[in-house]
C-alpha cells in the first residue's frame, strides 16, 4: 500500500511557508542540494496558501518565482512524522519518503490558538484562519452574517477578506484593551513596508464595528450556530450570525523541535544569531522562534539557509532586519496578551477536548496535563493535543513538553517501514 522513496540531500527544510521557502531557496542558490517538505497541496504556508505564482502579493510572487528557478526539490502533501539524526520520514497519500540530510532547517510555522467557550463545538463555529482558507477554496459567503472574535491581527485580515467576498461582518470582537491595541497600531505604523497594507485594511473595515474588551460568552443555536453572545465592556450582547470565526492569536508549532531535543525558552525554540538551535546542524526559522509575521519569517529563513551553506557572511547582513522584526514579536506579544477573564469562558460542561469530548469540569480535578490526559482522555485523540493542549496550558498552566512518535497520525504501514538502521539517537544534547 506504500511506495517507498529513499533520497539524500545536503539540506532538508521542513515547512514550505515564507521561512522554509526563503531558507531552501538561498541554500540552493549557494550550491547545496535541498529538499523542501510541506504537508499542504501547495507551497506558501499559512499566509501565501494557494497563491503560487499568480499572487497579487509582490513578496509572494518574488519568492514563488525564485524558488521555482532554483534547484530546490519540493515534496508536497508530505507530513514529516519522524526525525532522527541525519534522517527523516515523511508520509504522503501513497508514499513514505525516507530522506537523509546533513543539515536540518525547521520552519514548521504556527497555528491558531483556540479557547473553549460554551457552544464552540456547534457546527459553523470555526477558526478565523479556517474561514479565510475556506472562502478561498470555494465557500460562498455572500450575504452571510459573520461574527469574528478572539484576538490578534489575523481577525482584521479575515474580516476584510470576508467583506470583499460579500459577507456581512457583524462585528470584530477583540479581547485586548483599546489602549494596547492602539499601541500596537502605532508600532505597525513605524514599519514602512506595512503601512500600505494597514491603510488598506482600515479602509476596508471602516464600516465594521471593531469592539475592544470584547469576547465570546457563548455560541448559541440548536443544530448549528444561530447567534453569538458576547461580553463587551462588561455588558452582554447577542448577535444573530451564520458563522462565528474565532482565534486567539497564534501558537508556534514546536512539536518537531521538542521531539528532537531542541532547547525551548519562553515558549519558543532557542536559536543563536544564525538561527542554529542547541543541536549543531539543526536550524529553526519563522514562527517557532517567535510569532512575528511573514517578513521576519522570510529573513530568518534566509539566515538559516545561508548559515547551513556556511555563508555566515551573507547571513550576517540580514541580522539587522531580523532584530527589527524581533521588536515586532514583542509588540505583538504585549498587544494581544490574553486577559484573565478568558479563563472563565468555559462552563463545567464545556468540552475542552473536541476529539474525545472531554468537558472542562473533568479536567479541573487534575494536577498535571499527564494526569488529566491519562484519566480523562483529553488530548488522546488524533489531534494529539494540538488544540486542547494549548487551551489547557492557558486555562490551567499545564505544560506538555513530552512529544511521542509519530509526530502526526500516520498509516501503520508507514511506521512499519521505518528504516531500522536510522533509529533516532538524537535525543541526547537536548535540554528537555
Amino acid at each position, binding site marked *: 500500500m506504500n511506495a517507498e522513496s529513499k533520497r539524500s540531500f545536503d539540506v532538508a527544510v521542513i515547512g514550505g511557508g515564507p521561512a522554509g521557502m526563503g531558507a531552501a531557496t538561498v541554500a540552493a542558490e549557494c550550491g547545496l542540494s535541498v529538499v523542501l517538505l510541506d504537508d499542504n497541496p501547495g507551497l506558501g504556508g*499559512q499566509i501565501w496558501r494557494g497563491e503560487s505564482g499568480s499572487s497579487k502579493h509582490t513578496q509572494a510572487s518574488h519568492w514563488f518565482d525564485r524558488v521555482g528557478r532554483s534547484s530546490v526539490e519540493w515534496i508536497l*502533501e508530505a507530513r514529516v512524522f519522524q526525525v532522527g539524526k541525519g534522517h527523516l520520514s515523511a508520509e504522503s497519500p501513497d508514499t513514505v519518503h525516507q530522506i537523509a540530510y546533513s543539515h536540518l532547517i525547521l520552519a514548521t510555522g504556527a497555528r491558531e490558538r*483556540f479557547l473553549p467557550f460554551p457552544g464552540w463545538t456547534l457546527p459553523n463555529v470555526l*477558526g478565523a484562519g*479556517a474561514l479565510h482558507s*475556506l472562502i478561498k*477554496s470555494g*465557500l460562498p459567503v455572500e450575504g452571510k452574517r459573520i461574527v469574528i472574535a478572539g484576538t490578534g491581527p489575523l481577525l482584521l485580515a479575515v474580516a476584510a477578506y470576508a467583506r470583499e467576498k460579500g459577507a456581512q461582518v457583524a462585528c470584530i470582537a477583540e479581547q485586548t484593551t483599546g489602549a494596547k491595541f492602539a499601541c500596537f497600531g502605532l508600532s505597525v505604523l513605524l514599519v514602512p513596508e506595512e503601512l500600505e497594507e494597514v491603510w488598506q485594511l482600515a479602509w476596508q473595515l471602516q464600516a465594521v464595528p471593531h469592539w475592544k474588551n470584547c469576547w465570546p460568552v457563548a455560541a448559541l443555536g440548536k443544530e448549528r450556530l444561530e447567534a453569538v453572545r458576547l461580553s463587551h465592556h462588561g455588558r452582554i450582547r447577542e448577535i444573530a450570525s451564520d458563522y462565528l470565526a474565532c482565534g486567539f492569536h497564534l501558537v508556534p508549532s514546536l512539536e518537531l523541535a521538542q521531539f528532537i531535543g531542541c532547547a525551548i525558552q519562553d515558549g519558543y525554540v532557542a536559536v543563536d544569531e544564525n538561527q542554529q538551535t542547541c543541536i549543531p546542524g539543526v536550524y529553526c526559522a519563522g514562527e517557532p522562534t517567535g510569532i512575528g509575521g511573514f517578513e521576519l519569517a522570510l529573513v530568518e529563513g534566509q539566515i538559516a539557509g545561508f548559515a547551513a551553506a556556511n555563508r555566515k557572511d551573507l547571513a550576517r547582513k540580514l541580522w539587522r532586519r531580523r532584530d527589527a522584526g524581533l521588536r515586532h514579536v514583542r509588540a505583538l506579544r504585549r498587544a494581544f496578551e490574553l486577559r484573565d477573564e478568558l479563563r472563565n469562558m468555559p462552563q463545567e460542561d464545556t468540552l475542552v477536548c473536541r476529539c474525545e*469530548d472531554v468537558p472542562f469540569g473533568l479536567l479541573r480535578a487534575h494536577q498535571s496535563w499527564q494526569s488529566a490526559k491519562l484519566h480523562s482522555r483529553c488530548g488522546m485523540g488524533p489531534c494529539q493535543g494540538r488544540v486542547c493542549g494549548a487551551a489547557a496550558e492557558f486555562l490551567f498552566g499545564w505544560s506538555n513538553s513530552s512529544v511521542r512518535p509519530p509526530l502526526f497520525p500516520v498509516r501503520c504501514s508507514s511506521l512499519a517501514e521505518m528504516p531500522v538502521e536510522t533509529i533516532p539517537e538524537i535525543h541526547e544534547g537536548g535540554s528537555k
Partner: protein
Amino acid sequence: MPDSIVVWVAGKNVEVPKGATVAAAVFVAGAFCRTSPSGQPRTPFCGMGICFECRTVINGEPHRRSCQVLCEPGMVITPDEC
C-alpha cells in the same frame, strides 16, 4: 458554473468551484462531516490539517481530513463517526 464540480454530500448533489476542498463542500451542503464520540454533529474547524475535526468518509474511506482534500467529480462524502 463552467468551472465547477458536482460531488455527493450526505445524500445530495452539491456544486462547488474547481479547487474547492471537501471541507468547503460540507459547508456548502449544510451538512456535517462527523459525529463526535458523544454524538454531536461537527463541521470543519481549524482549516489547516491540525484539529482533525473535519474527518469524514470519502468514497468509503473513513477519517479523511476533508480540509486537506480537493473535491473530484462524483466524490461521495458521508459523515464519519469518530
